[in-house]
């Protein structure tokens, strides 16, 4: 089964009509993944013995549909590595809440997707398991950190994948690969079983070619959870109800800072075309300002790295994961296991975080960053007083060449400037394909008020219906 022309609805029909059985669908999917993997390297682990749920209930549209899971989401009995050497043999003994919920909906987990190590990166090049490739051009990055999930969906390995988004890790690879990806409101989806990078920013998201498919899956994974005290107990709406609507009178904010000098002109043009379409269809376009945008990158790196430095201390070689050989004493076990087990980018973030939290730096860095975060969030609150959504480009450029930025952390970090704010403010945000620039996809970003994913689905679905980007096939896989 190659999924380039499929969506959940079409697959469900085939299962329901008996054109294919769920077993066959699973086997076909595994076969297709294996054929494409030499080109894409989108997966870390393929679940060879994957089987559809027993007693399949085909009144449920998701039943029997295969899905890929980013490898920082814990799957009971399926190796989970966070793309790190330090966990490359780690076998979980419980399921993340999202996994339990997908299983309850009878989706079939077929593989664990490649990513940046511990989700730290914007190109998936920091993976211990090799760099995944962009299906539109195999010499280019998939983006990150959910690069494997994005490439797998864009390349037709699966119809859907879960990712996680701490500073743009779902939206940026979605943009780079020409698919839809949504980071829900912080607290919309339980983080139980998501390997923590930055606890106050991390959120699990959905990546699919079609907007409707993400709405269907988010319907299933969202909601209260007794294991996570930061997850909301609000009623989860049926997100598919937001689809098929027009955009008349919708108040759309366009921040000037998202069209600054760092953003490529062709990207700006394509995004403006989409905004024009919204305007032509009755949306009210308001030019606005997010004055603290220039501080989001440093602010993010302080907060995310500080939390990460603490979250990643548990990888110490004692209870699980990689333990270095030839150690003389306990300190040796710690230092060698961690120094050998983590890659450079992870070490940089741990170091930055330890520095920002250390005595003498806390007020100047962590505390100041937490205050600036308040100001960033306030910028958004103010805009949402008079607007329903904020739109702009997802990334300043299209996917870059593999190897071009990895040696320059600051250049890599600057890439996240348009996506980070949503995590800082805890608001939902998504990227929907806008079109191509030089044959590479461009993402249109939509942000909304906390717990208003419906407005995002409404706009994304409208854009999708208008530009029909899903009809385009990735060019990198053509022989």
């Amino acid at each position, binding site marked *: 089964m190659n999924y380039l022309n499929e969506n959940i609805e079409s697959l469900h029909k085939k299962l329901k009509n008996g054109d294919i059985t769920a077993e066959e669908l699973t086997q076909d999917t595994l076969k297709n993944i294996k054929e494409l993997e030499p080109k894409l390297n989108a997966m870390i682990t393929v679940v060879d013995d994957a089987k559809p749920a027993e007693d399949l209930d085909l009144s449920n549209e998701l039943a029997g549909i295969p899905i890929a899971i980013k490898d920082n989401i814990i799957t009971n009995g399926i190796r989970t590595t966070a793309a790190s050497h330090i966990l490359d043999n780690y076998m979980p003994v419980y399921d993340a809440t999202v996994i339990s919920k997908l299983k309850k909906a009878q989706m079939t987990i077929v593989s664990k997707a490649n990513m940046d190590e511990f989700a730290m990166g914007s190109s998936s090049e920091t993976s211990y398991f090799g760099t995944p490739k962009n299906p539109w051009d195999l010499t280019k990055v998939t983006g990150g950190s959910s690069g494997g999930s994005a490439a797998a969906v864009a390349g037709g390995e699966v119809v859907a994948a879960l990712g996680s988004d701490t500073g743009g890790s779902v939206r940026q690879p979605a943009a780079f690969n020409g698919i839809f990806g949504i980071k829900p409101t912080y607290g919309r989806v339980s983080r139980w079983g998501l390997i923590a990078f930055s606890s106050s920013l991390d959120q699990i998201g959905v990546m699919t070619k079609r907007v409707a498919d993400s709405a269907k899956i988010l319907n299933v994974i969202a909601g209260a959870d007794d294991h996570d005290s*930061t997850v909301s107990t609000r009623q989860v709406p049926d997100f598919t109800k937001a689809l098929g609507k027009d955009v008349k009178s919708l108040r759309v904010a366009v921040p000037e800072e998202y069209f600054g000098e760092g953003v490529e002109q062709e990207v700006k043009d394509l995004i403006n075309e989409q905004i024009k379409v919204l305007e032509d269809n009755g949306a009210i376009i308001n030019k606005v300002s997010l004055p603290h945008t220039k501080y989001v990158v440093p602010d993010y790196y302080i907060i995310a790295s500080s939390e990460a430095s603490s979250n990643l*201390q*548990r990888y110490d070689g004692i209870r699980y994961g990689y333990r270095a050989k030839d150690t003389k004493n306990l300190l040796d076990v710690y230092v060698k296991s961690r120094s050998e087990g983590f890659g450079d980018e992870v070490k940089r973030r741990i170091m930055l975080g330890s520095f920002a939290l250390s005595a003498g730096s806390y007020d100047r860095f962590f505390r100041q960053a937490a205050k600036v975060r308040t100001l960033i969030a306030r910028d958004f609150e103010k805009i949402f007083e008079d607007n329903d959504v904020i739109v702009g480009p997802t990334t300043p450029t299209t996917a870059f060449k593999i190897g071009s930025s990895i040696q320059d952390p600051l250049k890599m970090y600057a890439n996240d400037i348009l996506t980070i704010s949503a995590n800082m403010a805890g608001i939902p945000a998504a990227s929907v394909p806008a079109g191509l620039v030089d044959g590479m996809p461009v993402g249109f970003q939509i942000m909304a008020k906390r717990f208003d994913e419906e407005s995002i689905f409404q706009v994304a679905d409208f854009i999708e219906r208008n530009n029909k980007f899903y009809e385009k096939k990735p060019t990198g896989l053509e022989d």
Partner: protein
Amino acid sequence: MNFKSTIGLEVHFELKTKSKIFSPSPVSYGAPANTETNVIDWAMPGVLPMVNKDVYRLGIMVALATHAHILPTTHFDRKNYYYPDNPKAYQITQFFQPLARDGYIEVEVHGKKKRIGIHEMHIEEDAGKNTHGANGYSYVDLNRQGVPLLEVVSEPDMEDPEEAYAYLTKLRQIVQFTGASDVKMEEGSMRVDTNISIRPAGQKELGTKVEMKNLNSFDHVRRSLAYEEQRQQQVLLSGGKVQLSTRRFDEATGKTVLERVKEGDADYRYFPEPDIAPDHISQEWIDEIAATLPESPFDRRKRYVDEYGIKEYDADVILQTKESSDFYDETVKAGADAKLAANWLNTQINGYLNEKQVDITDIKLTPAHLAEIIKMIKDGTISSKIAKKVFQESIENGTDPKKYVEDKGMVQLSDVSVLGPMVTKIVDDNPQSVEDFKNGKDRAIGFLVGQIMKETRGKANPKVVNQLLNKELQNR
């Protein structure tokens, strides 16, 4: 030169919950290694903490009992350090916004009352346990990981080891009477760290402090502080400087030994725990908890002395533990005479506990039993001597005293129509005793009472026998 000491204490109490503070693993002691753990205790990737409500409830009880101000909003923080018994390599504690601040307790030392401040108290998680082997390895057991702790940090208000001792004794008693903790040092449910510095009298700024951790008993606290006062004085008098350090008390020599010199405070990189939402502690909840707070030892003592007319010393003996005080209250509630109950508790029961080296909660005698025994003495059903036999039986076997007395036919013989002829016969049989009595030898009566007791196998009511005998002898 005169020196002044400044002493501060940090006391950890294990809070008495059924499950751990952030995970539902059971809290238990002596289970095989790592059996009372789950993925949260192991800090497996992806796990999250979830706060146990009862930990707050018990913490609030102690805060109320020590007059501390409970913060309306608290938040957990992370204290980062690596150690094998600390699986996340951070401890979840409350650093910036603790449970409560500014409490106090009152102690009496050297005949004077003194108020000692409590700086703050916060809830946090305990670590697992490392056992050090002789072969270059250590062995980690995570059963204790996540057991809830309340840390009570005093103000540096204590000026000598006696005050520290009094503070600890009082604090333990207060916490024990809330029921929030078992407060057993030997089992680790109460742990004491001390800080002491000295400075020449008249000097304003405090001297360099020395810390002592994990002291085994209140006596060790007192002795180690006294030793440190002397040691630090000698260091200063000989022109030296006290080092910022951690020392250990050596029980065998009674001295303190340098463990580690500190170059400054350890860098724990505290920051707010992002995995736990803030906790708002409402006044309604505090009031609700206050309503369930058991009567304080202070109030109990007042009741014992003022209402029951018990001697202060006896009241203090009863109040040594909450269990003994509870036992006493229940005995009185079951209808026992308050003074007799105090007597029996402090002599008979305590004697038994000392002899057997057990706790009052371990014995089979119930407060209802003791009340029954006391009632039977009072209404003359049994003699004090028999009562002791009954007591022995009940405390050892849990036998119901009333039933035992009836079954064994121990009911005291007070019937004059039975005892009268018996007395007449004994007096007839012992003319020498009658002679002695006439000659003013009081011992004669004792001998004759003994004879009656022998005849009745101890069941005769001695009071009645005495009366009858006196009458009989007067008539001869």
